[in-house]
């Protein structure tokens, strides 16, 4: 039985007190406990940012990669050893800014990994510049006269990019987030969980309170059908007085791994390479 304690590292997180990242870490650990995943069979892959520090504080394998590059690394780890549970984490700048290209392509590819985005609508670790999800007009160090661009909409993009599991959580509601992460890991395919994560140091606008007053849960709306993409799109654009969290959309389709005869027998990493017979290849060249 995997326990919360064994997932907890001796080192304490260095996040600011009150930061939403704490809730995400707790939720992730609880989800792994709930799923009873052995800790050595989990790899957490991160980008760079406050969010990117997360893998340091969870006692699983971890690969702390480059800014924006968690997804290519995570997908390849899964392809090389699909018996592992691979969870990618990152920030909004990391995933939706510099990492946007990988994000879109990973979703259509549908490798069976879970992607948790700490969406604080700001660049935290670099001390407060606008992020791709910063709201229009938001003033930051890099946009002292207000952000001009409207924010990207990760949920809508995910729906357009053939993501097979699209959800949004809130760092201020850990039990709900645990459920989403559990579902995301259980889902066979690429699962996106965008997490509203207040940055208490640099984002004076999108605070815990801001979200407490606005969020509602999709699953509490009994009419909502998370297999209906058109409906999902409608909710994806809801951002203002009401902000939906929960599962927007889910579909079952083959994972990338499912389509690879190369690993239908066993994971790549278990295949012997000591003597590869290339006589045929040499022959073909003669």
């Amino acid at each position, binding site marked *: 039985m995997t326990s919360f304690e064994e997932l907890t590292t001796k080192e304490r997180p260095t996040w600011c007190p009150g930061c939403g990242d704490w809730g995400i870490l707790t939720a992730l650990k609880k989800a792994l406990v709930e799923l009873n995943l052995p800790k050595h069979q989990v790899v957490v892959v991160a980008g760079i940012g406050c969010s990117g520090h997360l893998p340091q504080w969870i006692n699983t394998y971890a690969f702390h990669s480059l800014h924006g590059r968690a997804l290519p690394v995570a997908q390849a780890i899964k392809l090389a050893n699909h018996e592992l549970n691979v969870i990618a984490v990152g920030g909004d700048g990391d995933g939706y800014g510099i990492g946007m290209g990988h994000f879109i392509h990973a979703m259509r590819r549908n490798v069976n990994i879970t992607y948790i985005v700490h969406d604080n609508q700001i660049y935290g670790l670099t001390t407060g510049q606008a992020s791709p999800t910063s709201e229009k007009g938001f003033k930051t160090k890099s946009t002292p006269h207000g952000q001009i661009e409207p924010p990207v909409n990760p949920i809508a993009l995910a729906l357009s990019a053939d993501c097979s599991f699209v959800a949004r959580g809130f760092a201020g509601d850990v039990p709900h987030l645990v459920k989403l992460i559990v579902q995301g890991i259980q889902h066979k395919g690429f699962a996106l969980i965008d997490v509203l994560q207040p940055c208490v140091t640099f984002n004076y606008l999108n605070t815990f309170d801001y979200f407490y007053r606005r969020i509602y849960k999709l699953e509490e709306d009994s009419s909502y059908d998370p297999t209906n993409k058109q409906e999902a799109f409608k909710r994806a654009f809801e951002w203002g007085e009401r902000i939906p969290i929960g599962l927007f959309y889910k579909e079952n389709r083959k994972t990338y791994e499912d389509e690879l005869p190369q690993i239908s027998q066993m994971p790549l990493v278990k295949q012997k390479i000591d003597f*590869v017979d290339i006589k045929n290849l040499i022959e073909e060249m003669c």
Partner: protein
Amino acid sequence: MSEFSWKIGGEAGYGIMTTGFILGKSFVRAGFFVFDTNEYPSLIRGGHNTYTVRISEDPVFSHSKKIDILVALTDIAIEKHKKEVRKDGFIIYDEGFVNVKELKGINLIPVPLTKIAIEKGGQNIMRNNVALGASFALIDVDPEILYDAIRDTFKGKKGEDIAQTNINVAKAGYEYVLEKFQNINKIKIKSNGKQKRMYINGNEAIAIGAIKAGCKFYAAYPMTPASSILHYLASKENDYNIIVKQTEDEIAAIHMAIGASFAGVRAMTGTSGGGFSLMTEALGLAAITETPLVVVLAQRPGPSTGLPTHTEQGDLRFAMHASNGEFPRVIVAPGDVNECFYETFNAFNIAEKYQLPVIIITDKFLAESHATTDPFFIDGMKIDRGQLLSEDKAKNIQDYKRYENTISGISLRALPSQENTIFKAATDEHDEYGRLSEEPADRIIQVDKRFRKMKVLETEIDGAKFYGDKDAEVIIVSWGSTKGPILEAMKLLHKKDIKVGFLQILYIIPFPVNKTKSFLEDAKKKILIENNKTGQLGSVIKEKTGIDMDYKILKYDGRPFTPEEIVSQIEEVLIHDKL
């Protein structure tokens, strides 16, 4: 005559590549030694393409400047290449489509290629086969070797019928010339007996080397001249259980290779200069996380998009210093298809033993030119995965430190899924466990540890090869694909009684300092030969040994050296003592 060269020139997109390859292949099968090279512009159809095949009774390592038979499918082909045709050589051209006035000292062989193709085969494009047949009529060999090669090429892809049509068309070309030009002096060449040899280019050799090394994961984004590694491996992905992934860009490609390697499989990526630029950041990622990685950098002329389908050796310094910060890496520069194969195999061993990135640097000339060689000798090739922990060993480990500060600098490498060895791989500086650390002491330990690996590595690698005469007046130094033309030039110089030695730098990093010094220090005339503008290897030699080269033979028009160019420039040096 113990050799001859054949060249075909025409528009891109009309099968010239296949045609040239078939010609080469047929002679290889018949026991000859062959070297071919192609030239094509960066567009799909139209433009001017050439394919040059040199056939010899003895081993050949490059093309040569003089052409014995030119097949001209267009006027441009005549215009561009008539000067290359040797005295009493032949020009076969498409009568009715190509116009030629008499050319002094050259035998014109007008053949209605297209017409015959349409009559006998039905398709324009088969005129190339007519030309092949016509060519054989000028050579004193049994044309059956041609028909066999045609059959082999088309049978698999297009079926027996199409193969036969192609053969018929070739026969028609053969017979046409035989009949019309009865008095010609056929090219005489004799095989020393059939012998099984490979006819292979650098990219194929690299790909097969990787397969032999147990590469299980290849991620890449298409880029000339590296693309055919991707194509080749993709075609074998199911036979050898390799995941071959075309990614959204080169950044993803190298990160995927690193991810796969971290998870425990041998992984590679390949690209050309522009893509390599995009990969530079991740080189450092591999370095600091000590993840084994093999990167193929197939050069083409830059800067930027440059001449995308041509050749150059302009990225040496870039490869040496790419990525921010300081870390050890290995750079190997194969000079021929054999080195492509064996050094790729070695690259995987080195990458895993020393847990660092290895760059295999080639160029378009090496990547795409076919050469004959004995079948790769694979006995005794041994996979060495270095300090990789087996499941069993990992089980018994306590207090595992992924980045342990060892004497060799190499630390035990565990893989995710092993029970007692959970660790963090991080691009931030870290302590021995892999935990982020900004302490000066940890920093110094890790930097030193990483660099210490090179000390061990240096003792293991012999990074240079010497050819020819050690006491020669002239010592050539070069690297990579110039090897072929240089070896050929040495043969020519030898005939002129000019003694030459040639130091081939095979490993750029670790640089063979001692060997280079020992061969160059007393050399009278040191000549640098590089396919670039600035003489990059020369600058490295100066930096590492203090030795200045006396002369530089540099070429940067996007084309490979011919042996003759090298000979004439060396003669300049010897006669006029200047360049």
